[in-house]
């Protein structure tokens, strides 16, 4: 039986409203933390829980919190990154839309732990209706004394507000988010200094994903050790996965991090198998920036073990034969999908979203997009494949922020695993306009590496 910690009450009628949420045990963690715990004890619980950042990089949250500089007399800030723009990822929207008070509760407890008295939720501009839901919930929280001055008579003050972005993917990068929140152009900052030392208005700042902050609520309620019992190894707790693509049941699923990828794709509890009885061709397990996996590496690792829905197992084999859990945007491709077209589409996105600050990303993403467009539409040349490889190699790691890496990885993985499909697009320019390459069923890990 799968335990749900975040979405267990999501189907309760009226849970988005304060009264129903409170009746269902809402804001218990605030009472517990503010009345019975010290801020450091909350941080300690989060450390014990092994919670890792749910925004993509998977950095341990407790450790991130303990890095926060605490100079005397300087205010600190907690920012919630709700700028969820990764293609394939829509878990935060679901959470904020259905159960907005969970995020607010998490913000209060986390702000208490970090000693922040002014916190912000930065939400992407396209989520304007979600912003209204959150604003209503914040107003309810203020009205009921969970926000404002002297919360629960403990002397802890917290003001919380929501700020929308203006539709830039790059503002999900934490320093670009801070710039945008300060009212500037959303360009990532050059690090160091890191936000934990100099963030919003040059003050120490922590930026966390929506799901991370929501997960603090069950951690405080049940204790970090209880939370750490769920999952395997260093992947503790539950994770929201937004499943999409050619599956029978797309949607947001809360999983315990111990199930296999095979179960996730084929079991009726989750995705319910590939649509129309087709076969699996590829899978992007963590949103568009992570490497794509070919069918023979989705359910099994290169070592032949079952691949699990955990940070470690999905990354098993490095980028050569693995991928990443990323932000949990799980995209499944059936045998009729064209990998070249998909790669072009992703690259088009990164080209459009590059902020233009540093040269490799500004110029390289556009170049890759043009080459991929040419390949997809049957005008490609054989050298283009190696050219693409070279371009992505020169972008990766050489940029200010991870957008360059995010643009390079999908291209690298597509060429690494599906080179013959790119070659087919060059050799059969007419056929590639008429049909898709399909699935090479006889290709397995053994034949691919032979």
């Amino acid at each position: 039986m799968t335990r749900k910690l975040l979405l267990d009450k999501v189907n309760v009628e009226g849970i988005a409203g304060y009264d129903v949420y409170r009746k269902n045990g809402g804001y218990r963690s605030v009472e517990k933390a503010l009345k019975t715990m010290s801020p450091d004890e909350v941080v300690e619980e989060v450390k014990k829980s092994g919670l890792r950042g749910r925004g993509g990089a998977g950095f341990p949250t407790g450790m991130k919190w303990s890095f926060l500089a605490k100079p005397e007399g300087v205010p600190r800030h907690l920012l919630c990154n709700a700028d969820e723009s990764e293609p394939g990822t829509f878990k935060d929207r679901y959470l904020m839309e259905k159960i907005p008070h969970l995020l607010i509760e998490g913000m209060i407890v986390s702000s208490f732990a970090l000693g922040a008295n002014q916190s912000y939720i930065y939400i992407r501009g396209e989520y304007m209706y979600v912003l209204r839901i959150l604003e209503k919930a914040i107003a309810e929280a203020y009205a009921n004394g969970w926000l404002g001055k002297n919360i629960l008579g403990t002397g802890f003050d917290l003001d919380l507000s929501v700020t929308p972005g203006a539709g830039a993917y790059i503002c999900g990068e934490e320093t670009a988010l801070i710039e945008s929140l300060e009212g500037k152009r959303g360009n990532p900052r050059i690090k160091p200094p890191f936000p934990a030392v100099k963030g919003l208005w040059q003050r120490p700042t922590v930026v966390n994903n929506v799901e991370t902050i929501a997960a603090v609520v069950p951690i405080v309620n049940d204790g970090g050790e209880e939370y750490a019992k769920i999952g395997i190894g260093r992947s503790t707790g539950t994770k929201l996965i937004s499943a999409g693509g050619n599956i029978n049941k797309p949607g947001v699923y809360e999983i315990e991090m111990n199930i296999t990828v095979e179960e996730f794709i084929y079991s009726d509890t989750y995705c319910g198998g590939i649509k129309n009885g087709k076969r699996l061709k590829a899978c992007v397990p963590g949103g568009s920036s992570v490497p794509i996996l070919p069918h023979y590496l989705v359910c099994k690792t290169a070592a032949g073990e079952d691949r699990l829905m955990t940070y470690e197992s999905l990354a098993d084999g490095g980028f050569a034969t693995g991928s990443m859990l990323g932000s949990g945007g799980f995209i499944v491709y059936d045998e009729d999908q064209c990998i070249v077209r998909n790669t072009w589409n992703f690259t088009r996105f990164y080209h459009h979203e590059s902020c233009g600050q540093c040269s490799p990303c500004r110029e390289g993403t556009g170049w890759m997009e043009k080459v991929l467009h040419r390949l997809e539409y049957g005008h490609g040349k054989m050298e283009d494949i190696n050219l693409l490889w070279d371009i992505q190699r020169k972008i990766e790691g050489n940029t200010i922020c991870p957008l360059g890496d995010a643009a390079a990885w999908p291209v690298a993985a597509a060429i690494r695993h599906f080179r013959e499909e790119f070659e087919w697009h060059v050799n059969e320019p007419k056929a590639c306009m008429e049909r898709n390459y399909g699935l090479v069923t006889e290709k397995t890990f053994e034949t691919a590496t032979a």
Partner: protein
Amino acid sequence: MSEQTEKIKVTIDGKLVEVAPGTTILNAAREIGGEVVPPAMCYYSSLKGSGGKCRTCLVEVSKGSEKDPRPMPKLVASCSTPVADGMEVKNKSSEKVLDARKGVVEFLLINHPLDCPICDQAGECHLQDLAFEHGLEKTRYEFKRRTFDQIDIGEYIKLHMTRCILCYRCVYTADQLTNAREHGVLKRGDAAEISTYIQNSLDNDFIGNVIDVCPVGALTDRTFRFKSRVWYTKPMDVHCECSKCSGKAVAWMIGDEIARITARKDQYGEVKEFICNDCRFNKKQKSDWVFEGPRHIDRHSVISANKYEDPIPEHTPLLNKA
């Protein structure tokens, strides 16, 4: 009385230097000088916030510090990474750095018009120097290059956005030397462009300095446009009495006439003392200036290659090869 700050030791390409804590790798390398200095297109020491953008100054940190000897996982921008005690840095001695730099130069050039034959900046263009040293012989880019319309921003300055490499130097100059924030970057990604507020003119006593900080030919002097190739002009150190600026400038002469006035640039192409528009654009008579003598141009550009002075000895083999 402990005014003396502790110096820390850094090794760059095997050369040891002691610098004050907080110095960036690039500035530490500049203290050593010569071959170990990474090229920099966007960093400008007198402009706050500049640097980190062009990625030409990437270096490999093979040893983080004495305390934490682990190498840094990625190449770092030397202009914005502070040194640590015992740090070991590889610039020219790292294949990885040279490869990445080659990539950056290629990226900078794919949308550059390569119109050097008609560009006023040719001969003193940092991109030319960089491409000369690190670029490929031919381009692998086969698509239409990005173009923009030329704009006159004010009476004296021409903005040719097509040539721009988006180093943001002029944005910081306009921001930091003048009172009003009149000039910035519009749009994003490869559509980003330097612009003024709805094509307003830039009208400020010191705005002419954006021409000097521009590493390429994107911002040029309208009073000098197409008058001469820079290597046919002869630079002279001059000065004058000026109430607004230091009055120290360089006059570029054609015969007996002043073709243009610029600020004095150091060996890394950086202006230390900015000059006012009046000096730059309006004092074109010999009688306006006191002449100090010929100016030494410490660059391996076309100027130093064959026209004005002896080439810098260490670059001679490079030039002969080319």
